[in-house]
């Protein structure tokens, strides 16, 4: 397969810009908008029927893909290839990427397609319009991975890694890093399999040494492949995770900490909750001081207040000696329960019930009122309606009891939820309900004087 010399000669700055915009910023791109802008720019002069054919053909393909009519899509694709011969060089140069995207989609799903067809197509497309070479190579490798052909994928990536074309543009460099990182990921996979094997071997075994030596080799190669990518801003979760795992395995705690800290705190990187989670888990494994753990989770709390680690965060705050941490602890609990996905989380309710009592006993009514003021309009309907009372009681009596206590404290004993639960006559829970009634009477923030 040889390249088109014409495209080799011409610098393609436009494409480079396009590619870089995909990788930067919000990470979102609007291909249709871009296409639309493209047509607006060339508007004015009369479109030839050739262009009409290719445009119509493109929309037929898109429609067929949408309806999963692979056969039909392939039929139209057959005609769409002629856009590679478009006399409009602008369109001709944009075509290979579109063809690759559509074609690979069709070949991925088409019943008559197989790995071989896909390989042929990918190899051909790599050489039309050189600038797509890396992207296509990477996607080709991912396709092979999807089909469990790890070795072929690895070979493909190695091939792409060594590919050079003139002066690399910066966007191409990111791609090369990405390709290397995927290679690293594949090596990690082998490493981790070896680790499993190793764990079954006896340390005195003869095989143990060679195996561990083998592993060491692998990890070294992998880290070389991974670390370049990790330093470029972006979301690289799987790569970071496996890199850190290997560093930890070989006892390089400082290295691991540095990678994770950088990943979580470097401002050039996009905001990524996972970065903080990885760092927190690492620090926890390291038995880092509570203060440190709290500071990591504080950031996570700002990004994802409903994360399941928030309950752990609450426990940390509760145990802390600082008063503002105690206040934050209350905030966190309220925050978790703001989310529809957490309404049935019994632990959260249990914590809230317990912590409300504790806070009120500690004479911090103002804290509670502060949290409650912004929620008193919607929480009663959201959590404490009689519908919820009935269904909670039916599904999970323990949850209903916790919620009843919270409702009683926040809304007073007149509230529907509390009234419904307290009226229930259940032999097992009779004592508990009695206790709830008592604490509501004692702690309710409604008419505290009574």
């Amino acid at each position, binding site marked *: 397969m*040889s390249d*088109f*010399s*014409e495209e080799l000669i011409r610098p393609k700055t436009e494409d480079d810009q396009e590619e870089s915009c995909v990788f930067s910023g919000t990470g979102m791109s609007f291909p249709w908008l871009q296409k639309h802008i493209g047509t607006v720019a060339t508007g004015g002069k009369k479109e*030839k*029927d*050739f*262009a*009409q*054919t290719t445009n*119509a*053909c493109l929309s*037929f393909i898109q429609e067929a893909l949408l309806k999963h009519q*692979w*056969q039909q899509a*392939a*039929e*139209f*694709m*057959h*005609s769409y*290839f*002629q856009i*590679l*011969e478009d*006399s409009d060089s602008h369109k001709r140069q944009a075509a290979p990427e579109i*063809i690759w995207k559509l*074609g690979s989609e*069709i*070949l991925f799903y*088409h019943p*008559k*397609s197989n790995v071989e*067809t896909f390989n*042929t*197509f990918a190899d*051909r497309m790599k050489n*039309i319009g050189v600038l797509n070479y890396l992207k296509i190579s990477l996607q080709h490798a991912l396709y092979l991975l999807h089909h469990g052909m790890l070795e072929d994928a690895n070979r493909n990536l190695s091939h792409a890694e060594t590919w050079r074309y003139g002066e690399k543009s910066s966007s191409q460099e990111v791609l090369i890093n990405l390709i290397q990182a995927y290679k690293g990921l594949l090596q990690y996979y082998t490493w981790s399999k070896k680790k499993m094997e190793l764990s079954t071997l006896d340390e005195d075994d003869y095989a143990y040494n060679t195996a561990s030596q083998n592993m060491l080799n692998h990890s070294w190669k992998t880290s070389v492949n991974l670390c370049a990518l990790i330093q470029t801003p972006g979301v690289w979760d799987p790569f970071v995770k496996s890199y850190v795992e290997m560093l930890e395995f070989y006892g390089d705690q400082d290295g691991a900490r540095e990678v994770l800290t950088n990943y979580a705190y470097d401002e050039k990187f996009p905001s990524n909750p996972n970065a903080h989670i990885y760092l927190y888990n690492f620090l926890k494994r390291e038995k880092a001081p509570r203060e440190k753990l709290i500071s990591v989770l504080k950031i996570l709390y700002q990004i994802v207040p409903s994360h399941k680690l928030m309950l752990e965060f609450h426990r940390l705050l509760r145990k802390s000696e600082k008063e503002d941490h105690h206040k934050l602890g209350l905030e966190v609990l309220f925050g978790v329960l703001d989310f529809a996905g957490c309404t049935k989380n019994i632990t959260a309710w249990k914590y809230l019930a317990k912590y409300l009592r504790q806070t009120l006993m500690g004479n911090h009514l103002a804290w509670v009122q502060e949290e409650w003021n912004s929620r008193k309009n919607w929480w009663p309907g959201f959590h404490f309606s009689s519908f919820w009372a009935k269904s909670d009681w039916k599904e999970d009596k323990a949850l209903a009891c916790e919620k009843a206590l919270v409702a009683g404290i926040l809304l007073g004993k007149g509230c529907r939820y509390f009234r419904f639960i307290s009226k229930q006559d259940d032999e097992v829970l009779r004592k508990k309900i009695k206790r709830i009634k008592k604490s509501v009477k004692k702690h309710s923030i409604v008419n505290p004087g009574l």
Partner: protein
Amino acid sequence: MDLEEAKEFKERCTQCAAVSWGLTDEGKYYCTSCHNVTERSKEVINTGAIPNTKIQAISRGLKRKRKLEKGWDWYVCEGFQQILYQQAEALKTLGVGPELKNEVLHNFWKRYLQKSKQAYCKNPVYTSGRKATVLEDNPSHSDWDSEPDLLSDFSCRSFVESGTDSQPDGCPQKPFPISKASQSETASICSGSLDGVEYSLRKEKGIVKMTVPRTLAFCYLSLLWQRETITLSDLLRFVEEGHIPYINAFQHFPEEMKLYGRDKGIFAIESWPAYEDIYKKMIEIAKFLDLPRFPDITEDCYLHPNILCMKYLMEVNLPDEMNDLTCQVVKMTGIGEVDFLTFDPIAKMAKTVKYDVQAVAVIVVVLKLLFLLDDNLEWTLSNIAEKYNEKNKEDKPWFDFRKWYQVMKRSVDEKKQKWEEARAKYLWKSEKPLYHSSIDRAVVYKRREMVVSLQKQFSTLVDSAPTVEKKSPSSFQFNWTEGDSARTCFHGHGLQGILKKKGQSMTTKNSLYWLSTQKFCRSYCKHVTTYEESNFSLSYQFIINLFSFLLRIKTSSLHEEVSLIEKRLFKTKYSKTKKKSRSRKGRKY
């Protein structure tokens, strides 16, 4: 042809040991099995044995190979002649009489060459440069007064004798002088033809330059002269369906006629021919050629509105009985007159009738007379017809507009969908790619190769059944049969429900009518009126869409034609009350 020529080379290939040689463009041998190119080149050039067509006939003596380009010397007009020849042959296979090619088109073309000072005159442009003086043998108008004159003007029939090398030695004029080797060497740098560069630069006043779309105008002129049963819309549809060579017609040029550079701009076509465009070009050419009045279009001609109306009534599945009404409209409007119908290019205002569009417009007018098409009356009448048909199952059924609409809507939508898909699947690029210069050549060929291989790969994913089955040419696009509920035939249905007796004659039950256009454009913008779809009833829109799809014309041009018929039909209304929005008019039949 290359393989034929390479037969004498019998050595084994050094790469694969096969004995299967072809000739490259440079005249070297290449192995057809492994594409290995040898250093050996063919020495004897044996052009005499190549069975070639009229190119030899018209430009004998020019076929020596040039050192640089390795093709024949040929002129742009020969390229067009080649296309016309192909088109004429195609028309012949469609059933058109052989006289069209041998006499009419041949003479038109000769006349064109003469008028444009390219051949058949004492000092053609090629010898005297571009400043050709007045043609001395330019025939005067009087020569063209009658048909026989036109057809016997020249004795040289180079256009006719194809496939043979036997040109009568007595041919008095050689179309192109040979003594221009120096000019051709320089010109050929940017084009495969000798005069490609010069041709694309030429802008002479008063000369209609030949283009590929104009070949169709020539075809239609000949068809019209012969009063053949092919309308312009039919012709263009046949082009679209691939029965007449047009797009990539250059593909079938003889191997030795190389095209590149400027030839690309002249012969490569990336658009379908449009009705209005070809129609205009046809008039323009007829005027340029100074053609005499065409043979009369009389009532027994296919192009006469009475016959065309009948044809289109059948095509769109309307009752035969409507033909009486269309004939009456034709009579009242006077569009069936010979003088109105016959094309006369040298008349003051050269204008021909769009026979097909006009016939269809008459049908639309009749439909409006019968059903009003106001989204109301046609449905009321349908209800009556439906009830009658239910009660009288044995009788001849009354025409039910609603049923007809349902059948037509489905069929047309289906057809349109297929048509759109076929258009989207159309492969524009020729197997013989055109390039701008020899530097491009490799890239262009590589690209072609790439596309072909990708297409080959994807064609294995498609069902083995060929997707684009070639339709056999037909004047009819629809097929109606009795019995099949999806394709119900309404030809035999009666109009009793819509007409009523009044004294001796029949009148329409509907006594209302609305005009498609109240005001005509009086300015010089050339269009008659505008068509803003949303201003009209849905039924009218449907009918206009249906017919304009059938003829592959714009809805607005059909609407214009309808308005023009109405203008003739309601002359008095237009002159008296121009501002009345809806005119009431009872018509008697």
